[in-house]
């Protein structure tokens, strides 16, 4: 499964992109993760993960709308690809299976 293996942080980023549904770009993703995890995240880490995910074909991106807040600079929007969705499903399936396999205390 090399190439589609997801690290923990990559998984978080992928999930954040999925949550933001089409409105995912660097700053928004960073905020989303910080909000969800209640801890601070480096923009560099997020972008590095995004770059890797895009390389693995789990994300695609397009350049789009600038806002005054950004000093007129454009955003790069990320969307989860089919492969990305599958990868998330796959992970979730494994996790579920493992959760079920935990013997219930009496």
């Amino acid at each position, binding site marked *: 499964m090399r190439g589609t293996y997801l690290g923990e942080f990559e998984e978080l980023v992928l999930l954040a992109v999925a949550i933001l549904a089409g409105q995912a770009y*660097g*700053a928004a993703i960073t905020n989303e993760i910080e909000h969800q995890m209640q801890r601070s995240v*480096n*923009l560099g880490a997020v972008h590095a993960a995004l770059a890797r995910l895009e390389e693995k074909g789990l994300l695609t991106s397009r*350049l789009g709308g600038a806002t005054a*807040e950004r000093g007129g*600079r454009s955003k790069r929007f990320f969307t989860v690809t089919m492969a990305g969705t599958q990868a998330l499903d796959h992970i979730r399936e494994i996790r579920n299976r493992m959760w079920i396999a935990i013997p219930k205390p009496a």
Partner: protein
Amino acid sequence: MKDQIQPPKWATKLLRWYCAPHLLNELEGDLHELFAQRLHAYGLHEACRRYVLDVFSLMRPFALKKQPEKYPKTAFYQIAMIRNYLKIAFRNLAKHKMFSLINIMGLSAGMTACFLIALYVHFELTYDAFNTKADRIYRVSTDVQTSSETLRYSISPWAMASNMKNEFPEIETYARVQKDEMLFRTGDLKFKEEDALLADSTLFQVFDFRLLKGDPRTALTAPFRIVLTETAARKYFGSTDPMGQTLLLGDKGEPAQVTGIMQDPPANSQIRGDIFVSMSTYTAHQDKNIEREWGSFGAIAYVLLKPGADPVALEKKFPAFLQNHAGKMMAEQQMQIHMLLEPLRNVYLHSTRPADESGNVNNVYVFAAVALFIMLIACINFVNLTTARSVERAREVGVRKAVGAGKSTLARQFLAESTLLCLLAFFISIILSAALIPIFNELAGKVVSAGIIYELPFVATLLAAALLIGLLSGIYPAFVLSSFEPVRVLKGRFTTSLKGIMLRKGLVTVQFTISITMIIATIVVYTQLDFMRGYDLGFSKDQTLVIQGGTDRERDAFEESIASLAGVKSATASSAVPGGWNPQAFSKIENKSGEMQAGNMDVYRVDYDFIPQYGLQVVAGRGFSKLFGTDSIQSLIINEAAARVLGYASPGEAVGKRFDQWGRQGTIIGVVKDFHFRSLQETIKPLTFRTLDFWNGKLLSVQIEGKNVKQTLSAIENRWKTIHPDQPFSYYFLDEFYDRQYRTDERFEALFVNFATLAIFISCLGLLGLASYSTVQRTKEIGVRKVMGASAVNIVALLSWDFLLLVGIAFAIAAPVAWFVMNRWLDGFAYKTSIHFWIFVAAALLAAFVALATISFQTIRAAMMNPVKSLRSE
């Protein structure tokens, strides 16, 4: 207001620097957005902190520059463009041959002058520097104070050095050196060596003289051991091995053994000689008591201090040391000796004490300044000619700019061009320097350089300097040329700005100021030397031959034998001749108040007929005469200066007064008029005459007729050979000998004349270039004037006036400067000419004439031109 707060700029800059361009936009956007949000949520400090943190966190492989840029910028160096620049540069050189020639000639002449002067200055400044222990070597000099004057000696008492070494732990060792004229013989060869030295065995410990053969520790220990330089070894022994051979030393012909062969000392060593004889030959053999003498001065003593020893502290111990050893002697002779240490490296350039050869630190500075000025003139030429030519290149600049050349690209092109020109000049100047070094050596009177291949560090420096000059003098033209506006230039209506013209005129004025200053200086130096050569010295030096004639009966016999020769007028013996060295004697003479005044006085020991033959005037009393038997031991003659020192108002008062000098007591029998027995740089000192003892009076002055000098000379030489077959015949002409004192000044003059000529030559080159440029610029104006009826003379006058004005301004600046500087120079002479008004007039006329002659070629051509030609092109 918070919206306008910006994140730390440096962090943004950092990001822009490392980040790949295709990512920059979005990353900066994200950073900005987050910054704005955090500013709201957490405040400025936290926002900034996170911003910086994020910038650093983005420094990851994905963000670094790796993707090639879509539209590459022009590279700093592009081979094709450089090739184009070079091509254009060479085409420009070839197209404007006159300008190129003037430019390169001026620059290479300047560089050559600079190079040669730099060699000279370096030579002078590194005197004695070859000694690795130079910073620990000191010369012990002495001041001897008597009641009448203070004598400043470079020599010291014979007993001093060995006692110093015994008493002062700071002193590692010492070496004494005494120059002496000695006779050497081997087989048929015999030479009177002027450059023979007595030296202590420690010579090789203190100084870095290299022994090629022999043991430096023992080479000069025992008496009658000698070390030859390579040159001397070749002279005496040719190709045979000189080690262990014998040379016969002195008049008595005592055998001495060669125990070492030394590499010739460097040209800039203050200790220089061909033959080094062990000091003990003298101190342990010829004069056994001399090492205990405190009152007898001789030999120059050098001490080598131990590392870390403090020379100042050592000097403070000298008075007590002297009092301890020589106190009694000093009290008896009514004199006071002071010792002082002079650092070896300072002796040549800074010490004013007597020396065979001494440099003048002021001359070194003068030459360094001259070199810089010449270089400045050459650079100014370069700037002037290049900017003047800029009009012609304006169109090129316009086209280049139109097709997209940036200002910096153009500046670079012109800088490269000027550097190229400088490099060409550099190569020419290296060839010139190589050819001129022998001539320069002759001019300077010493081997400043053995050849250009020994001066590679200097060549490298000159190359660096050439590149630097190219850049520096190219900056202004490059700046001017590259700032032309293409629209104006290409329309064809283009004239140089008033500012540019003013600048060029200013620079020409500077050039001429320097040149005129040098002309005035040269004339003043020349008149001073002429003044000294023509000065009435108070004695006759013409047609006088001085022969080293031996002493006593031997000499008398020879004197008698030549007296009958045709062409010989008269002959007289003495121990000293004017312009040469004479000893000083401790003398006591009765002064005006009747006391015996003590002091060291110059002594001439002369034969009876010396005073009349030399044309010295006896102003009171009488001269020596054989009729008075007492004259041989009880008579003294003094000069007017001595009479004045003794307090006598008129010379007549001194006659009949008592004296006590060097074992003779008696009375003063006469006073002679003052004459210059030393150079005119010094005032006339008190002098005493006494008759010869049998052991001195080696110099025989022979006055000969002006005709058939050669025949007379060879007749005298024949007589010498029959009487002294074993001794060389050595002689000199008194006038040449006397004028030898001015050799340094004459060299100074010769060098100055040459470099002043060069300076004005380069200035004229610049003027020529400028004149030809300005006439071209005014072609149309001249045409119109001619049509309106101006004559050729009017036009020439009009064009020349501009330049004459510049020369006039230059003169107004140069005259006072030159006057001030040359007055300072003249202060070095006790007898000096004044700076006459005509010198300034001559300099002004000369400068004006040269300037007019230079530009006349251009102005006359412009004035003669048919106006139809110049006006047709409208």
